[in-house]
């Protein structure tokens, strides 16, 4: 019994210690972000790596999610004679929830894991040490650009996901299922508020981008510099990011809506 307690206590102590390390890491990250203003080219490169490269999977997923939503919404609403509201339902679901959350999960899996693997590998091949010995701060040159790129890219990708989802919904709802085009768009416009729905969705995207990038970069920088260490760090990034996104989504939804 005492053995179990010991291990339990050690586990929690270790977790708290890790969380503390991660927080100090975040503080250093923020310091590095300020110096990015002088060197924006690093940011463009990372925006390309995180944003542009994740674009295709986000657009394809968004399209399919929008189409499925329209299909399911139609099947349910037609029982109440309210099939005109398909547009409303698709748009609200996407903009408020699925846009930021699904994009966040896709981002964590694609860009987040790539960031962790890349940084972990840099650590394992002593590139980070090399940078330090050349009097270059890895926070400024390696970590901060990736962090800022993630924070910026995720809400943008979420907006694109929602937009193409709504278009996909139109494709299925109006073109295929026969919902009235005017009703689709006008009822949608009446029910989606720019400030409380679209903007809140963007805020969610920002928060998710912050958390996913933080986790991804920290795991990479903190990993054990062996191939096993890098691989488990990458896995941890995806798992923790996903859990964080879902948990934060609940909190944010409760606060915002």
């Amino acid at each position, binding site marked *: 019994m005492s053995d179990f307690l010991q291990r339990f206590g050690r586990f929690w102590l270790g977790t708290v210690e890790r969380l503390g390390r991660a927080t100090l890491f975040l503080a250093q990250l923020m310091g590095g972000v300020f110096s990015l203003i002088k060197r924006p080219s690093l940011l463009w490169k990372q925006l390309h790596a995180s944003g542009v490269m994740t674009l295709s999977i986000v657009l394809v997923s968004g399209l399919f999610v929008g189409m499925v939503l329209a299909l399911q919404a139609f099947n349910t609403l037609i029982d109440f004679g309210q099939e005109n509201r398909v547009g409303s339902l698709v748009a609200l679901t996407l903009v408020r929830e699925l846009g930021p959350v699904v994009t966040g999960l896709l981002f964590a899996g694609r860009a987040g894991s790539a960031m962790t693997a890349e940084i972990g590998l840099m650590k394992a091949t002593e*590139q980070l*040490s090399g940078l*330090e010995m050349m009097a270059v701060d890895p926070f400024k040159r390696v970590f901060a650009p990736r962090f800022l790129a993630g924070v910026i890219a995720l809400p943008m990708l979420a907006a694109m996901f929602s937009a193409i989802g709504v278009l996909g919904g139109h494709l299925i709802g109006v073109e295929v299922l026969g919902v009235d085009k005017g009703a689709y768009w006008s009822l949608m416009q009446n029910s989606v508020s720019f400030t409380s729905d679209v903007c809140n969705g963007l805020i969610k995207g920002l928060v998710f981008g912050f958390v996913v990038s933080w986790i991804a970069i920290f795991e990479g920088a903190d990993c054990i510099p062996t191939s096993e260490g890098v691989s488990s760090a990458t896995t941890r990034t995806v798992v923790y990011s996903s859990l964080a996104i879902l948990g934060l989504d609940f909190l944010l939804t409760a606060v915002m809506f």
Partner: protein
Amino acid sequence: MTPDTAMPEDGPTLVQIRDLHFSRGSKRIFRGLSVDIPRGKVTTILGPSGTGKTTLLKMIGGQLRASKGSIIVDGLEVGKLKRGQLYELRKRMGMLFQSGALLTDLSVFENVAYPLREHTDMPEALISHLVLMRLHAVGLRGARDLSPAELSGGMARRAALARALVFDPMMIMYDEPFTGQDPISMGVLLELISTVNTALGLTSLMVSHDLEEAMSISDYLVIISAGVVVETGSPDELRASTSEWVQQFLQGRPDGPVPFQAAAPNYETELLGESSASR
């Protein structure tokens, strides 16, 4: 010479280490290590694997902090420097990592130019000039556009050396430079290290367990074991040393003061069971 008061005979000291203590987790790596690294010479730190030789280099470079003791480089106490001052000091030191540690997303040229671009506002033409000079010195001017993935291990190290030299540092540290090299690359590296040291008036500090190579180009040797300095001196002095331990190390004998068998219970007992011990 007694280990803990090692003093070089020629010239002032560049790096002075006193009573260094350092532990990694529960393992004590240094227990009161003291050594002086002479200026302008090639010094090699020798010792069995795992004695913390690389850790020592990292501590001199300020990447790790000692729990007790002091490291003074060119008059500056490394442990007490603030971030900005530490970075200034690092610009005057070059370090060659075991794998070269070149940045994988840049070409060889860009890698060598990297410190110049980061720390100075030099015009492109001047940067190009300096970089090509260094690359020529290590014999890689023709490889300037290759990416690090396309280089062999030896070439990568030479490129890293060119990068370390770009600011004309006062000291270069080499972490296991000879490990895993074929004889020709080895010869090239040896030649480079000693030429660079003499031509540029540097201090070279190497960490290695490749005995012959190290002894062939070093002016001064420091042997570390069990967290303290065991023996220091020039290669000839060490060869003439009467310490059994040093002799085992130098001659590569498998058994001696450093035993072949790691500590283990009695073999007979383990094989045949407790009853055999009472027989």
